[in-house]
């Protein structure tokens, strides 16, 4: 643990330097993705970026489709910042940060139309597969957004359907098929932070106390943007947003390389 004041971080950023000696646009090491860590979930991963660790679990269930989309399944993403992951978190209902985390990851996947929802429908207006992804942080050492986005994409890629008997309508969760989700695109969010007018990625917890503005950019493998989320108090100019998006696309490519 390091205690340092905000001005130090801001001054270092001006000189293209960081507390831990990394370059401004360099991710921490190791970036580790461990799959199939839980027997009971349809998909599960553990993602580590530096000291930040997050778990993602995916469950599938058959439910009645929504009235306005009778031929589509659905997806829901939840995030929980458990007290174990940092001294700033308390037990209880999800706070602002947890809600934002879940919403940003959810929007990136939903708006990219990453999953072919029509293929999740079994009987029109009656039965469709619904996907739930739960994100649980084990350690927050900064940059949860990128870690959560990476975990969500990894778990979508890894998950397999459980055995389903259409006549009886019974799902056998203990038997797994080898059928993967109908994933069309692979959206991945990358958060770019602004400190002293400089652009940085993969902030540590100390640096997160000192940023002025941040923009999360979710893009798929072709570089098509699906979601943006701005945070922090300082404004961003159009030129800055252009630079942020270029950097985010480059870093998304790098993270996608880690996923394979």
């Amino acid at each position, binding site marked *: *643990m*390091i*205690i*340092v004041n905000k001005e130090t971080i801001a001054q270092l950023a001006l000189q293209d330097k960081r507390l831990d000696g990394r370059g401004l646009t360099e991710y921490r090491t190791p970036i580790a993705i461990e799959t199939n860590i839980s027997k009971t979930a349809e998909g599960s991963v553990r993602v580590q970026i530096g000291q930040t660790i997050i778990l993602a679990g995916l469950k599938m269930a058959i439910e009645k489709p929504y009235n306005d989309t009778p031929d589509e399944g659905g997806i829901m993403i939840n995030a929980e910042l458990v007290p174990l992951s940092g001294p700033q978190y308390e037990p209880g209902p999800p706070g602002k940060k947890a809600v934002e985390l879940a919403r940003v990851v959810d929007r990136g996947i939903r708006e990219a139309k990453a999953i072919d929802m029509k293929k999740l429908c079994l009987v029109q207006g009656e039965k469709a597969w619904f996907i739930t992804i739960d994100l649980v942080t084990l350690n927050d050492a900064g940059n949860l957004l990128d870690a959560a986005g990476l975990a969500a994409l990894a778990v979508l890629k890894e998950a397999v359907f459980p055995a389903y008997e259409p006549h009886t309508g019974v799902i056998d969760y203990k038997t797994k098929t080898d059928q993967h989700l109908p994933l069309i695109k692979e959206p991945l969010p990358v958060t770019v932070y602004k400190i002293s007018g400089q652009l940085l990625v993969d902030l540590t917890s100390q640096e997160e106390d000192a940023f002025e503005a941040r923009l999360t950019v979710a893009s798929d493998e072709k570089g098509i943007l699906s979601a943006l989320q701005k945070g922090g108090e300082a404004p961003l100019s159009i030129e800055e947003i252009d630079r942020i998006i270029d950097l985010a696309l480059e870093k998304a490519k790098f993270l996608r390389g880690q996923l394979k």
Partner: protein
Amino acid sequence: MSLLTKERDIVIPGEALAEGMDYLPGENTYRESEKIYSKVLGLASITGRVLKVTSLSGPYIPRVGDKIICKVTDITFSGWRIDTNTAYSAMLNVKDATARFIRKEEDLSKILSIGDYVVAMIVNVTSQNLIDLSMKEPGMHKLLGGRIIKINTHKVPRVIGKQGSMITLIKERTQTEITVGQNGLIWLKGTPEGELKAEQAIHLVEEKSHLEGLTEKIQQFLS
């Protein structure tokens, strides 16, 4: 009658160290009927007839004369309340904070404000573990800039080394100003590269403190 442990053995709480009245219980040990037991997890050491255990884990226990790095958490009428990185908070009185005369109506936050870090010395610890601090001793000051890192308090003696050998080595090689608090907080100030190198070296000492040839390893790391 007999010793049940050897010098530098790792002992656990409740482990019998010696039997009979030939030995005396020292630091972190207690006697129950005929036997002497360890109170903590640590290394046993025998000096003459006295048995003591050097603790390897657990929190920092405040002791008079220790130089610590701590944080101002509140301002009161006559001084500051200070977080010492232990279970107990400390008081720093105005008269112990500075040698300068302070007028009655003066704003105390101009001297030390909430969130500031200071190097202070423990001058008194009551039986209730209330701590009194002083900044009048030489080397006590408010910390400006640099970075503060936290290490296991039981590794502090290893970071300092014999007669300060380890810390002098790190200071010289990295050209960094370093102050080690007995409560496990260490303040580093120098160039960003020097600070980082010194921080890594200190963590290396913390990690490898039980191994032989530590000084050589650190020399190698820093060269």
